[in-house]
């Protein structure tokens, strides 16, 4: 028996792209393909929270759709609890609780209780066992008082919780969550993250995708950073950040920014990376500079910036974050 809950070997997914503006007769020649996931391999240990961190379109959802049997890989192998996903899809589905599309994955015209009853039956749980399970889940997710109202009247956080309860109704050992806190207010997101940690305490394996680095950092035992369909780093959050141990990040808030000053700063040897971002709401530039030799460079940096008639509104010295790891690996921010 494998000690991995999920094993992914050389997984690839290539989609055909049909050009819409090409005439029907030429289309066959003009069709191209797009590689969404390119030859990735990783294992998820039983009982761990494994995070998939990457920007939108990086290939996170494509990967979990292949793991949860919704999408056929172009090539590669996926094993769930030692079983091949392509050959044992029914058995695999009994082991998985998957939440894709969050609040949209449930019926809004049914009540919370009716949703759970329906999905319990579709997983082979009916009668007294289903009733006990549903009552327990409704109470656990603090939905018991509004269980008999239609889902359309629920808040986004409640809809997300009922979708999670639905995934747990068959008591699966593996839970797959696609962007579970996306679109939630901070309080609801915090509550949901607590629930995810409880899943782990119960012995479940969790595979979650997110583009929130704080979330990946807080929840995951190990993280795979994915970009352009490839895993570019895989380790514990601590080790990923430690990989930047010689460098620190200074974040400047500036009134303006341009390529000339960026090129000038890049001449300073101890600077490893510069990433600039314009904050539309506050009308200011946020520039993150990764340096590898502390104070000496700070003086140099400040002098160069101020000599260019740029006003420094604020600056802070930061320990590396997963965002910095991502920037260091890809040269761009997760927000880009």
């Amino acid at each position: 028996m494998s000690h991995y809950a999920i094993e992914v070997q050389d997984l690839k997914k290539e989609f055909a792209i049909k050009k819409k503006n090409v005439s029907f007769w030429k289309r066959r020649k003009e069709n191209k393909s797009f590689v969404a996931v390119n030859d990735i391999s990783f294992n998820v240990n039983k009982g761990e929270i494994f995070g998939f961190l990457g920007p939108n379109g990086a290939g996170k959802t494509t990967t979990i759709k292949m793991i949860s049997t919704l999408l056929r890989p172009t090539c590669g192998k996926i094993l769930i609890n030692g079983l091949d996903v392509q050959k044992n899809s029914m058995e695999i589905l009994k082991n998985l609780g998957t939440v894709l599309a969050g609040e949209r994955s449930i019926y809004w015209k049914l009540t919370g209780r009716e949703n759970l009853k329906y999905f319990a039956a579709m997983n082979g749980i009916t009668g007294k066992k289903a009733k006990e399970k549903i009552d327990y889940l409704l109470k656990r997710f603090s939905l018991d008082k509004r269980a008999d109202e239609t889902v359309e009247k629920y808040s986004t956080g409640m809809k997300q919780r009922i979708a999670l309860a639905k995934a747990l109704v068959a008591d699966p050992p593996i839970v797959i969550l696609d962007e579970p806190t996306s679109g939630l207010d901070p309080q609801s997101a915090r509550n949901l993250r607590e629930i995810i940690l409880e899943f782990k305490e119960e012995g479940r394996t969790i595979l979650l995708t997110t583009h929130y680095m704080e979330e990946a950092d807080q929840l995951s035992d190990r993280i795979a950073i994915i970009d352009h369909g490839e895993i570019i780093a895989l380790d514990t959050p601590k080790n990923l950040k430690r990989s930047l141990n010689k460098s620190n990040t200074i974040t400047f808030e500036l009134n303006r920014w341009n390529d000339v000053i960026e090129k000038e700063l890049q001449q300073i040897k101890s600077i490893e990376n510069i990433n600039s971002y314009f904050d539309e709401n506050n009308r200011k530039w946020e520039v993150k500079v990764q340096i590898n030799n502390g104070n000496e460079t700070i003086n140099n940096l400040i002098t160069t910036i101020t000599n260019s008639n740029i006003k420094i509104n604020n600056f802070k010295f930061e320990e590396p974050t997963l965002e910095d790891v991502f920037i260091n690996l890809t040269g761009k921010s997760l927000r880009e």
Partner: protein
Amino acid sequence: MDTTYESIRVSSKANASPSILIAIVYIFKKELTQFLRYPSWFVSMLIWPVLFPFGYVFTAKALSGPASSGINTFSALTGTTDYVSYMIIGTTMWMWVNWMLWGFGSSLRREQVLGTLESNWLCPIPKTTLLFGYSFFQLLYSFVFMGISLIEFMLFYNFRFTGNPLLALLIIVASIPSIYGIGFIFASIIMWVKEANSMVFLVRGVITVFCGITYPLAILPNWMKGVSSFIPVTYSIRSLRAVISAGARIGDVRTDIMILLLFGVILMTLGILAFNYTQKKVKETGSLGHY
């Protein structure tokens, strides 16, 4: 969060496979519950059977000429002077097919748009179970609809059975596999092309023109009659008219019933094959959850 729940450990034992029959019952219950939460559907179910045939009945009345002289021509072609019953049998069959296309045929697409199709696909059941669940709900709906229609026809159109009502019911039952076979194919294509309206208009248009909803097939050109013979609804309408209006017995409509059953076997098989093919394709393209 509520932290009063008992701590649980995850069982390593997988659940038993869900029963297909129970899954069908629960899909049926889910569809019915959602339907009842839209009361306007029930109102349209009451009004539509009365309203829809009126247009055709009045057209027939206008064309029947002074002192209904045109009825003789109609009678020579159809074997009955009761053009009202003739029209309402045709329009009721049309409405059945119409509901089937909109309700059952679009069921997978509706789930796709709502976002719930993937949730159903993630359940450990054969996916054809979903189609059978939707079709059982649509069957109940169709029978209620026909029951309401029958009562309203008796009240508003003075409709009466000349032949055996049980034989008419038998023809309707024999029509179910072929009509739902069309529905299976239709549901699969719609999940594929992601556009229900144009497909409904196309299929409905073909049935309106080729199956003799409001006119006898005898007036169609020969090539159109040839097309009609490949559509099962033609046989349903023809035999229902023979039984209800002309009092035909089982021996008179036996061939039509056999043809309907044969169509049923062929179309159901094609429907399941189309669904399995679509299932395979959407797994390759990843379009299961696309709008």
